[in-house]
């Protein structure tokens, strides 16, 4: 049986631009590297801010929000876990719009995240639920349409949002 298709990187780039995003904070993640990050890094309309550690990006995105500039933080779920305290502080307690696109490393393409064999994948959605953080799941090409409204929602509500990438992004 053929593996289900992942989302297309160019569609995700178009979606974040549609939502007004022009700054992308990033630490590389193999789920999104070839299909999304490499094309994104060559896109002259987007400013890439390369991070040394993911939680820096939470603060940078929040600070850009004060300057009325929309941004996203692109990382792996391990970076999300490492950034939880800053997301809790800046995003949840201080109600700042921090939008995160998170590759789920180790997730099986044909399973829901909560059904994954990987503990690190399985806990992500429950952790986000416990933190009352808005999240969406992008598995296939058809799911990308949910990204612009989720970013809009984060900025309108001044709250964090996570878009989980459940399959390897295709070029």
């Amino acid at each position, binding site marked *: 049986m053929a593996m289900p298709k992942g989302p297309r990187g160019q569609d995700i780039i178009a979606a974040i631009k549609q939502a007004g995003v022009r*700054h992308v904070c990033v630490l590389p993640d193999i789920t999104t590297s070839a299909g999304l990050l490499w094309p994104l890094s060559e896109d002259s309309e987007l*400013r890439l*801010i*390369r*991070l*040394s*550690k993911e*939680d*820096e*990006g*939470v*603060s*940078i*995105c*929040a*600070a*850009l929000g*004060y*300057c*009325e*500039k929309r941004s996203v933080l692109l990382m792996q779920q391990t970076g999300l876990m490492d950034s939880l*305290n*800053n997301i*809790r*502080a*800046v995003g949840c*307690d*201080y*109600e700042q719009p921090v939008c995160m696109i998170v590759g789920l490393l180790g997730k099986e393409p044909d399973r829901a995240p909560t059904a994954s064999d990987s503990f690190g994948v399985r806990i992500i959605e429950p952790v986000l639920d416990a933190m009352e953080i808005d999240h969406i799941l992008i598995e296939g090409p058809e799911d990308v349409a949910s990204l612009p409204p989720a970013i809009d929602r984060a900025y309108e509500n001044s709250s964090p949002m996570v878009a989980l990438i459940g399959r390897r992004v295709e070029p």
Partner: protein
Amino acid sequence: MMQRMACFEKIRDARDGAIVVATYTSAFEWRRVDPDPLNFVSVGAMGQASSHGLGLAIGLPEQKVVVLDGDGSLLMNMSTLTTIANEAPANLVHFVIENGSYEANGGHPIPSQGRTDFAGMARAAGYAHAATYEGLNQFAADLPELLSRPGPVFAALKVEAGEAPPLDYDYDWLHSADRRREFREAVKPLLKD
């Protein structure tokens, strides 16, 4: 060794409309020295002042952004040095108030007290300029250039711990939504299309 308050008074006098990002004990003391709507307070997750400062410097490239970091705070977000060096914001000045202790948490020493060369680390990371100050006269003499030369600029200010009059640790103010709203409103006139 310098007095932190004396350093802050010098920075206040040379501020010239800059955004100032301060954290924890520095934030309380800076508030006492120079209450201003363009003061941004970085708290909630320790270590993030310089990352907030970087975001503001990128978002407002024509606006000077001054960070008043702590040594314990910088230790908690050391990766910021290479990120800032890579972005190379010309408008960012990163001061580290080096008192060698976690003053807001009981005055315990930082792990590297007296051993770590913070300015050396910033220089090695790729900051445009980095220096250490132990005397107020030299700091005051160099301050205009620190604030005017192309950044990112880093300066470690060696100060005595706990020398100030007892601080009012007003955490309600520190975490208040009003404080964030005030800053957002103050930034609006600085925004360009």
